[in-house]
């Protein structure tokens, strides 16, 4: 399906929902269990599995996904509360109990927090949950007051019957409402009538984040707890041949030192984490590196380069025409190769988990994006039934894809606990170095792009070859469909640029480096190639980069709309101040449309000063505007960090970087001025946590080209003589 068709079908959707007069009917879908399945406490009544009402009129809304900074602990319940016509001041939010969820056969649906899909993937059933609970409260009021339900209104947590002047809060009618039949279908509100959706509700987790009371995975403390740290083989895939812990074990507080998981790692357990960590340095370990000690960044790049010429690459689905013939007939040819390196997630909270193995139950506390996946990881490690795992929800100190079910640190904590006496709670915590060197990395990728222009400067032919690993194939054994990895090719598959002839393909290029989902995934890297190449074509055509993009994107494609929004916000049609240069990029990630303009100047010594970043996003609907702004501001920081300094390099099979001194990220002094433009068109639900990043790096590199004439085709920028200026006023 190409992008154009996608947008046409969306337009039809808007029209058809308008045709039935605003609101639209949707049949109830799971997850929407019956209240009777839940045992609520004395003064609380579950109306359905998402909504629980107490006699004091407070409304408890369940939240099934994770909170790791993206804000949906607040915004997802806004969806329920709006349809319920609740008073937001009375709303409380509670995590779904993971064990109960597992025992109720995943009643609350998808609990994984990945792919910017918490809102877009659950908005329909969450709104339904609110609307259904509202309908049942109305039915209860109608029954109690012996009036027709159609005469009853609900607003701001008050149920009213205007004719008789009767009113009630939710609490008094909750018990009766729970006995009412669950409506087969409910009308969802016309967006014009939303009053909680679309509001910048303060994030409910923030108060605990400012006084130290927020509990993260590494903060759990239990009576009798012991503390563990561990070392895996520096060369991925290696194992312990022998180890000597004599000195380590003689240190104060050391409880035990042992190998875990078929000799994949050495664990040290102590009465204090620092003591464990000091002792680990004194364990002498002989690693079997299994031949992977030969691999280096250079050998990987050489392998990718070979694969640019492989004859067995898999063609992408939207190819059309004859791209080779198109290139042969073109007046102007442009060809370029782009490289994006491996990257580490480096969330502020290092990896760790607490496990307590008791009789017939295992308790787990872990910062995770996938509570069911983490439960499964522990159950598999200990060979216990999944139903016996009780995973406790905590805030995650950043996730960014690192905590999405890799089954490594949670598994290790379980195996360490299993080696200790039963009923001994153990908290495993990795060092920053262990995290940096045993991540599941954003894949490295090499791209070759070829384009041909006709005499009018229009694109007649476009070719793309992608050489990269596959996250899902490598980490989870998921077979490629038609030889294509969806993540590695996103950004190209639905190329918005119209070329008469198009040929793109993907060559799977596995290495021993573990791969994972890194914020914005394929969209974190493909725009570096795509959105610079379109600039290179514009330069070859002698055209303005914005105008060139604009005329090659179909009018009804929302990528063009957001491009216009960003350009207008930046004042693209007026020259930048002397010495300041602009770059632009547009993208279509995770159901949203995201464009950026970067304004910068560059000193003779290569110091980049970013004067302004304009970020525009069309997420269709908007649930919490301030949270979207925060996500985009943060995404910009994330992207500029990666652009300037981000790379994980391999030498002798192992990662070279270890901590924030050699895996640099942006700090306050380097923070550019950022302007976020929300440009929602309505009609669809797009992602928020990841799309903001996608256009930043190419917009930055395009501005860099405008300023210097240097086209940077491999990241990070530090290797091209560029540094980032601090922004202090002069």
């Amino acid at each position, binding site marked *: 399906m190409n992008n154009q068709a996608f947008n046409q079908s969306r337009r039809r959707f808007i029209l058809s929902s308008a045709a039935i007069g605003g609101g639209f009917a949707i049949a109830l879908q799971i997850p929407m269990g019956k209240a009777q399945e839940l045992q609520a406490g004395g003064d609380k009544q579950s109306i359905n599995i998402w909504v629980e009402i107490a006699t004091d009129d407070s409304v408890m809304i369940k939240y099934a996904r994770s909170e*790791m*900074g*993206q804000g949906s602990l607040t915004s997802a319940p806004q969806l329920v509360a709006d349809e319920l016509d609740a008073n937001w001041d009375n709303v409380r939010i509670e995590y779904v109990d993971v064990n109960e969820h597992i025992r109720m056969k995943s009643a609350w649906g998808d609990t994984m927090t990945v792919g910017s899909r918490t809102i877009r993937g659950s908005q329909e059933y969450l709104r339904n949950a609110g609307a259904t609970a509202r309908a049942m409260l109305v039915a209860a009021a109608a029954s109690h007051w012996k009036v027709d339900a159609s005469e009853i209104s609900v607003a701001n947590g008050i149920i009213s019957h205007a004719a008789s002047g009767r009113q009630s809060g939710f609490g008094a009618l909750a018990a009766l409402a729970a006995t009412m039949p669950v409506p087969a279908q409910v009308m969802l509100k016309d967006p014009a009538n939303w009053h909680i959706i679309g509001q910048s509700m*303060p*994030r409910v987790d*923030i*108060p*605990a*984040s*400012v*006084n*130290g009371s*927020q509990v*993260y995975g*590494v*903060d759990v*403390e239990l009576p009798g707890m012991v503390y563990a740290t561990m070392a895996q083989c520096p060369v991925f895939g290696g194992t312990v041949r022998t180890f000597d812990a004599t000195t380590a074990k003689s240190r*104060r507080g050391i409880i035990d030192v042992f190998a875990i998981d078929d000799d994949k790692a050495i664990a040290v357990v102590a009465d*204090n*984490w*620092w003591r464990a960590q000091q002792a680990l340095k004194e364990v002498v370990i002989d690693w079997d590196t299994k031949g992977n000690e030969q691999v280096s960044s250079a050998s990987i790049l050489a392998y990718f380069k070979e694969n640019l010429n492989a004859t067995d690459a898999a063609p992408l689905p939207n190819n059309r025409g004859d791209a080779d013939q198109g290139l042969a007939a073109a007046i102007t040819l442009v060809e370029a190769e782009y490289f994006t390196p491996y990257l580490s997630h480096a*969330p*502020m*909270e290092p990896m760790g988990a607490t496990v307590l193995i008791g009789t017939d139950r295992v308790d787990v506390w872990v910062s995770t994006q996938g509570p069911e996946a983490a439960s499964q990881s522990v159950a598999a490690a200990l060979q216990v039934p999944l139903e016996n795992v009780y995973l406790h929800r905590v*805030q*995650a*100190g*950043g*996730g*960014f894809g690192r905590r999405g079910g890799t089954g490594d640190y949670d598994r290790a904590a379980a195996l360490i606990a299993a080696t200790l006496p039963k009923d001994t709670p153990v908290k495993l915590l990795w*060092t*920053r170095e262990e995290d940096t060197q045993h991540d599941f990395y954003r894949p490295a990728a090499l791209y070759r792009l070829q384009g041909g222009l006709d005499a009018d400067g229009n694109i007649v032919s476009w070719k793309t070859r992608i050489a990269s690993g596959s996250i899902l194939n490598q980490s989870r054994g998921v077979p490629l469909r038609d030889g294509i990895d969806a993540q590695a090719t996103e950004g190209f598959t639905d190329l918005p640029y119209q070329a008469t002839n198009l040929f793109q393909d993907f060559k799977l290029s596995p290495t021993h480096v573990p791969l994972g989902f890194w914020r914005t995934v394929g969209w974190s890297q493909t725009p570096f190639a795509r959105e610079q190449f379109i600039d290179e074509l514009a330069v070859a055509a002698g055209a303005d980069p914005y105008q060139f993009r604009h005329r090659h994107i179909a009018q009804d494609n929302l990528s063009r709309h957001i491009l216009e929004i960003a350009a207008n916000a930046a004042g693209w049609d007026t020259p930048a101040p002397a010495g300041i240069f602009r770059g632009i990029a547009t993208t279509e990630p995770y159901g949203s449309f995201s464009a950026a303009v970067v304004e910068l100047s560059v000193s003779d010594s290569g110091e980049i000063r970013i*004067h*302004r970043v304009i970020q525009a996003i069309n997420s269709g609907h908007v649930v919490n505007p*301030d*949270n979207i702004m*925060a*996500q985009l*501001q*943060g*995404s*910009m*920081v*994330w992207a500029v960090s990666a652009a300037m300094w981000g790379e994980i390099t391999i030498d002798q099979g192992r990662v070279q970087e270890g*901590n*924030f*001194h050699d895996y640099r*990220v*942006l*700090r*306050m*002094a380097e*923070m*550019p*001025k*950022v302007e976020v433009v929300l440009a929602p068109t309505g009609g669809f639900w797009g992602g928020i946590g990841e799309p903001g990043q996608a256009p930043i790096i190419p917009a930055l590199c395009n501005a860099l080209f405008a300023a210097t004439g240097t086209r940077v085709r491999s990241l990070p920028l530090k290797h091209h003589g560029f540094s980032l200026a*601090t*922004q*202090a*006023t002069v």
Partner: protein
Amino acid sequence: MELQVNNQLFDIDVEPEMPLLWVLRDMLNLKGTKFGCGISQCGACTVHVDGEMVRSCSFPVAAAAGKKITTIEGLATDASHPVQQAWVRHQVPQCGYCQSGQIMAAVALLEKNPSPTDADINATMTNICRCGTYKRIRDAIHDVAGNTPDSNQA
């Protein structure tokens, strides 16, 4: 060894070289101070020792003996400190993990310099936030100071 933390006295038996962070977290159960890097790079472990901000992951506990140690928990039990209130008003935290350290750094800055310029903020606020909340941290500090931002920085 005797330690004074948040106006409370603790008598602890500990190696003098143990970093203050691990005494606070694993011996005194004050979990608001975070471990981020262990090498004074990120500032998630920032606390005050006699009013000076220190990175407790690399600060031997012996050096804090006899001094007044303040952690995030000691700032205000009800989150009523002006900096905490500004952090809520500006909706600064995302994941929140680094924010104890950010707040302790901001409090130390404002106690010494009630009206910091952007350059002052840049020089003192060197803590890492991976979520990228720097704009809001800056706004919140200016708000507490009663300043309007004086540069082109967001």
